[in-house]
């Protein structure tokens, strides 16, 4: 089993930086004209005004390695000893910029005039920093817990079972565990298990109404993947393999990513590349499943709300995951007064806690500072309730709202739907 690297090793870091430079990154660095527009897209820059938070500057160590390995002047400068190599100090300094001030939200990638995918470059840079042991303690701990206990928050199957019991009591139905040949295998993020067990109940009720079979795997219920966040592909592969193996053992058709941003990214987009093959099932986000049920008439509501609702688009699901319309269809289904925040959709602003930022205690001050952006977005529409579809976003949003003494409830979209689900009328036969 892979382990979290904690010992600093700059040489290893530089080697991995070099190895991470693929055609994309070589092209990106060749194209960058240092125009600084990415800064305007990054909430860490716009909210602090600190030019160090310019996205492309966060991959400066990688740029230097690229320059010294791939360009004439770089090779010459390195040969003559003029160009400074990436040092221990650089690694220490940029660790902060790569992990504490970037949520991998990818907004910069959407505005770069030469088309650089800077979020991709940061993800690749993290790979080297993880290999060199320059990673924040909070993330190291979470990753270690994920590897050893099975969840970054340290929860076990036991905890899940306790929550399931509550749900069973509330609904009167038995929750399907390890059911062979079910249509869907449902995953959770530990945050949902601990903080938002309503989600589990909502899932049960919705699937009950939709009349589709589903199951929870006792071997792999955790959807999150700290390996992706810390940037260690080996760990990410290990964590994702657990899900793939469990799902393939159960022979399900679909694996459902929960309301969690990076989990969707990990299972839907990264898993096949990590394990080197396409798994024997399809991965869908819960919002996609719900929207499909809605389209098929399997999802029925018997009431709507005229509350002023708005939807916070989680970066990894929307901008980096490609789920844009389902949540809007679903919102319109239950909310007669649904309003969009400025920049909503693929250009939405991050909550400030993604990409592992929320796993580090030391980021709290910065996180609350950059929450100003979300606050202004919310002030522009002044909703009664805020809906989202990512447990991590939800935590960060609640934290920021509380800090700013804004009285605003945050709710998951799945739960919102379950609130209005037509009682009794089930399509299950």
């Amino acid at each position, binding site marked *: 089993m892979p382990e979290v690297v904690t010992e600093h090793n700059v040489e290893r870091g530089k080697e991995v930086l070099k190895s991470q430079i693929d055609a994309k990154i070589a*092209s990106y660095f060749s194209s960058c004209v240092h125009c600084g527009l990415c800064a305007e897209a990054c909430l860490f820059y716009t909210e602090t005004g600190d030019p160090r938070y310019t996205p492309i500057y966060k991959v400066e160590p990688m740029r230097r390695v690229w320059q010294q390995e791939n360009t004439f002047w770089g090779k010459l400068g390195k040969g003559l000893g003029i160009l400074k190599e990436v040092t221990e100090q650089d690694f220490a300094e940029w660790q902060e910029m790569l992990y504490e001030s970037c949520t991998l939200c990818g907004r910069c990638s959407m505005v770069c005039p030469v088309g650089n995918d800077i979020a991709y470059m940061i993800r690749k840079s993290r790979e080297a920093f993880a290999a060199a042991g320059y990673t924040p303690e909070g993330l190291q701990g979470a990753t270690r817990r994920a590897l050893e206990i099975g969840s970054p928050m340290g929860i076990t199957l036991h905890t899940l079972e306790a929550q399931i019991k509550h749900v069973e009591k509330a609904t009167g139905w038995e929750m399907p565990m390890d059911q062979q040949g079910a249509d869907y295998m449902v995953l959770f993020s530990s945050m949902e298990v601990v903080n938002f067990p309503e989600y589990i109940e909502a899932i049960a009720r919705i699937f009950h109404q939709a009349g589709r079979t589903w199951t929870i795997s006792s071997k792999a219920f955790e959807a999150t993947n700290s390996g992706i966040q810390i940037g260690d592909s080996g760990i990410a592969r290990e964590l994702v393999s657990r899900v793939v193996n469990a799902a393939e053992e159960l022979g399900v058709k679909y694996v459902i990513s929960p309301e969690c941003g990076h989990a969707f990214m990990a299972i839907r987009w990264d898993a096949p590349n990590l394990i080197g093959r396409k798994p024997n099932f399809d991965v869908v986000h819960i919002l996609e499943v719900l929207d499909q049920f809605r389209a098929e008439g399997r999802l029925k509501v018997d009431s709507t709300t005229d509350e002023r609702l708005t939807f916070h688009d989680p970066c990894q699901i929307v901008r980096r995951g490609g789920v844009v319309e389902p949540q809007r269809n679903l919102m319109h289904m239950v909310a007669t007064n649904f309003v969009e925040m400025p920049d909503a959709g*693929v250009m939405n602003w991050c909550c400030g806690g993604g990409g592992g930022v929320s796993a580090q205690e030391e980021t709290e001050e910065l996180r609350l500072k950059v929450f100003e952006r979300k606050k202004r977005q919310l002030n522009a529409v002044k909703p009664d309730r805020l809906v989202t579809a990512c447990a991590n976003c939800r935590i960060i949003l609640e934290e920021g709202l509380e800090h700013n003494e804004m009285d605003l409830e945050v709710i998951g979209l799945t739960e919102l739907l379950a609130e209005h689900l037509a009682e009794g009328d089930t399509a299950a036969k």
Partner: protein
Amino acid sequence: MFLEFVEGPLWYIALTIFVVGVVLRLLDVFRSGVRTDLAPPRREGLGGALRTLVTRSWTAPGFTRGAAFHLVAGYMFHLGLFVLLFFAAPHVLFIEERLLGFGWTPVPYWAFILAANFAFAGLILVWLRRVMHPVMRRISTLDDHLAVILTFIAMFTGCMALFQHHDSLRAIHMLTVEVLMIYFPFSRLMHAFTFAISRSYTGAAMARKGINA
């Protein structure tokens, strides 16, 4: 003598370095390759690549205000330079006689000068912002400044050469352009070619995820 050198041997040296250098740089980009994305795509990447190639010529929705300076000054410079480079009468003649064997209709003199005004204004503006803006100042390297200065000098000598009909001025312009061409493959100026690659890669990757980037 000087003119003969810059119009003869030096021109071919510069052209060779330019062409070979650019090809090598492009090969270097592709050398490391990209791993095939095994995740089942929502749609094919090719359309997205082409799409992004075009759409990144403008700003992302809701981003126009933040990028207004770059948009205006950047286009002033690039469009101006494009007209100067490919539609100035002496350049068209040069391309016809020395490079391709055929030419096209150049722009009239007034349009050339107007393009030059735009190009100079844009170049000075973006460079001043590079010096003034905290972000651009932090991320700029010597290469960025050199590229601006060399481009400025080449454009400037070009305008002077056109005005005066002096062989020596034309020779100076040839020289500065040759310096620029030799510098080109080793520098930031490569973005003139690689921007298309970058946009395509990103556009394809995002399209596979179902996003119009």
